[in-house]
């Protein structure tokens, strides 16, 4: 342990040394650059020499320290393992259907836990304070402030309203429009609901990002497990019981079979004659273009349908319901049909199973997320009157008041509808397609039926369903705070449906794929969805004027402007403290120290980069706080200014 502490102390000394150097040579930019490079090189050399020179005893001492850390980590892992949800089910699935299918269920479990924890975050900071405080009545009614909610009359209307979030569900905790509190009636107790609303949304996104990254990084560095590694180190001697042993044996068998098959496929491909290779590669290129063609056709269909649905929105009853759900239906139809076609394409391409899965994922995620993006774009252009022919509606209230009296609730309703529809379709397919298919295949022995056969559990399309559902929830979380909780329930129902269907209706896959790379790609694809939701969040927070008639931001110019306003309302001492925390003198050493704990070599590289353009980083951060949408071009401008200044000072000092 002593040796470990001493090692870290050296890092700290070097960082402080770098810092002193920087301040001493403040005027001489080129001097800093060369100095930092030299110092980082020296540091790396020192570390290498130290490791070579350390005697066996100290290595033993540090080994004991590492042992204790490892024991602690194992104990923590065992503790968490005990609380792990659905552990036995996932193990059974892995043993019976292979690692590939198991990775889908592990991913689903991760999303359930993520949504559940997010719900607590939102409930704690937004729901419960709103519940505790009284509602505040608007003053000065204005034309823009009118917010009329349709009343629910007939019985069947209740069901339609439940499914689409209108009527009795619209003005409730479910949607943004209900959170009306901006000022407190009681002066002694102050809780800034608008600020809490925004910051909770921002932290929710940051929390999800951190969870995804921490989950994907270990998967990246597990390294290649060769055959000898699997065979010599694969067995777990603490496995108890016949069932667990059999499952473990099956897992190892699957792993070996996957690797052996990929290898024989590679050898087979390498053995092909040149002409066959050319044919294969040209087929692959052709199939790629074909898949892009399918995806493009689906996009166009969704765009046309969404326009049609928005224009014809006024009809009532069942027809109105169908028109309301038309974009969702077209999107879901596209999401069923196009991956099927892409599967048939994959048969022609003849990649290895792992590559096929990754390609199927990437193609279909392109389709799913951009079709969702088209829907959102259409919705937002309706709200802000983006094409000029509807400009008349937006001049009064800066958003389209005629159609969207409370546009945030409307967006929340769209996302709610997408989620509910997705759940309904999954349950309907489960009950009405998969079970009958199995009954027909088992009882009818005619040739075409047997050729179709029992279904196989297709992992990529199922994973995309999850990513799509989660992206919808992320987009809608700002406008529908209870959506993560609804999504948790939805995913729990989905877990049980998929598990039952897997065991009752599916046949075991003829070949399985490697689960470690696929799990990493699931998270990468989920990250794409997160990126789309973040773009939507930033745009909504900073560009569109909030509704006058509902919600906590009806008196602000943009939702984000609440944050700087609240910041400047703080006392001077607090403001100065926060400025200090955000300034160079505090944040750079703190940042460097935190990097110490994680990686050794990366510190030097990063310190060099940061110290080269400190002004730019600081300047950009402050500007970003006031206008997040212009963050990008502000950073670029300030960076180029910096470089120009440096160049000038360097020239003048030379």
């Amino acid at each position, binding site marked *: 342990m002593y040796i470990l502490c001493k090692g870290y102390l050296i890092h700290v000394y070097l960082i402080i040394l770098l810092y002193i150097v920087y301040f001493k040579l403040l005027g001489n930019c080129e001097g800093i650059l060369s100095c930092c490079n030299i110092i980082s090189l020296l540091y790396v050399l020192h570390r290498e020499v130290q490791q070579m020179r350390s005697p066996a005893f100290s290595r033993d001492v540090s080994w004991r320290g590492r042992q204790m850390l490892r*024991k602690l980590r194992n104990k923590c892992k065992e503790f968490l393992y005990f609380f792990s949800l659905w552990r036995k089910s996932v193990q059974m699935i892995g043993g019976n259907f292979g690692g590939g299918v198991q990775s889908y269920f592990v991913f689903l479990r991760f999303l359930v836990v993520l949504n559940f924890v997010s719900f607590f975050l939102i409930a704690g900071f937004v729901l419960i304070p709103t519940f505790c405080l009284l509602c505040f009545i608007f003053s000065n009614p204005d034309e823009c402030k009118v917010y009329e909610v349709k009343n629910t009359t007939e019985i069947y209307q209740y069901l339609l309203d439940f499914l689409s979030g209108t009527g009795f569900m619209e003005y409730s905790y479910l949607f943004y429009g209900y959170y009306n509190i901006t000022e407190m009636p009681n002066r002694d107790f102050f809780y800034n609901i608008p600020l809490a609303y925004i910051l909770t949304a921002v932290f929710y996104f940051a929390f999800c990002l951190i969870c995804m990254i921490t989950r994907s990084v270990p998967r990246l560095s597990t390294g290649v497990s060769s055959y000898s*590694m699997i*065979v010599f*180190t694969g067995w777990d001697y603490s496995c108890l019981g016949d069932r667990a042993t059999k499952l473990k*044996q099956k897992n190892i068998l699957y792993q*070996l079979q996957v690797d*052996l098959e990929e290898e*024989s496929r590679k050898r087979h491909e390498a053995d092909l004659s040149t002409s066959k290779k050319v044919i294969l590669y040209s087929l692959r290129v052709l199939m790629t273009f074909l898949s892009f063609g399918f995806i493009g056709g689906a996009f166009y269909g969704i765009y046309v349908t969404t326009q049609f649905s928005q224009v014809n929105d006024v009809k009532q009853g069942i027809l109105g319901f169908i028109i309301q759900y038309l974009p969702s239906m077209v999107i879901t139809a596209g999401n069923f049909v196009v991956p099927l076609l892409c599967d048939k394409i994959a048969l022609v391409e003849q990649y290895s199973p792992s590559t096929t899965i990754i390609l199927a994922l990437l193609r279909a995620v392109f389709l799913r997320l951009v079709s969702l993006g088209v829907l959102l774009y259409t919705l937002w252009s309706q709200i802000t009157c983006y094409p000029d022919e509807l400009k008349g509606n937006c001049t009064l209230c800066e958003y389209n008041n005629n159609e969207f009296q409370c546009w945030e609730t409307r967006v929340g309703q769209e996302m709610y509808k997408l989620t509910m529809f997705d759940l309904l379709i999954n349950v309907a397919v489960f009950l009405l397609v998969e079970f009958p298919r199995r009954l027909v295949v088992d009882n009818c022995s005619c040739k075409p039926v047997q050729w179709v056969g029992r279904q196989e559990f297709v992992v990529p399309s199922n994973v995309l369903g999850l990513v799509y559902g989660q992206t919808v929830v992320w987009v809608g979380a700002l406008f529908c705070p209870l959506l993560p909780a609804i999504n948790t329930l939805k995913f729990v129902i989905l877990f049980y449906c998929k598990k039952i269907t897997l065991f009752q209706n599916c046949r075991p896959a003829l070949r399985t794929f490697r689960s470690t790379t696929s799990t990493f790609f699931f998270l990468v694809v989920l990250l794409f969805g997160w990126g789309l939701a973040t773009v939507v969040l930033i745009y909504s927070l900073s560009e569109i004027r909030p509704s006058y008639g509902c919600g906590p931001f009806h008196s602000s110019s943009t939702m984000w402007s609440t944050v700087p306003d609240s910041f400047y309302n703080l006392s001077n001492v607090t403001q100065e403290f926060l400025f200090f925390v955000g300034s160079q003198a505090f944040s750079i050493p703190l940042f460097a120290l935190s990097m110490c704990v994680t990686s050794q070599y990366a510190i030097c590289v990063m310190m060099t980069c940061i110290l080269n353009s400190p002004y730019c980083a600081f300047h950009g951060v402050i500007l970003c706080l006031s206008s997040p949408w212009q963050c990008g071009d502000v950073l670029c401008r300030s960076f180029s200014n910096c470089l120009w200044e440096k160049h000038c000072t360097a020239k003048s000092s030379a």
Partner: protein
Amino acid sequence: MGTTASQLSKESLSEYQELTFLTKQEILLAHKRFTELLEKHEKQQIDARAPMGRITTLPELKSNPFKERICQVFSTSEQKDGSLTFEDFLDLLSAFSDSATLEIKSHYAFRIFDFDDDGTLDCADLEKLVNCLTGETNDAKLSSTEMKQLISNILEESDIDKDGTVNLSEFQHVISRSPDFVSSFKIVL
């Protein structure tokens, strides 16, 4: 230095603690479980041997595919029947304990995998090893071509001196690259 009737003396306890990686509680628990395996008349004997058949009824070993090999490796009997004395049993638990080093564990793992006890892992040993690992049931088994391919791949990766077998140092070289080996090579009562 042997075990007394049904209780360990203080000197033996501290001696065992010095010689193995086990703690006092683990040694006492091991003694309790071992004496449960013995017949009534054997309990009073010094250096009583428990036969392999009874050792493999322990729940920690019952479903382990390597249980016979483990007993054989740690047994000190002249008849090579896999029977263990209490001290052999402690050796076993010590090698499989949390605090044993990587060298000890890899040494014993090598001996367990060496089914014909000739000091190297040749093709027959590797085939038996793979069959133990994958279970050998009729419906889920590697085909003979897959098995041949697998064994040749293993030899290609780990046989550095290209003599067609894997010796102890080559084996330890492979093991040292695995971060999970030490935590998976563990049996705790």
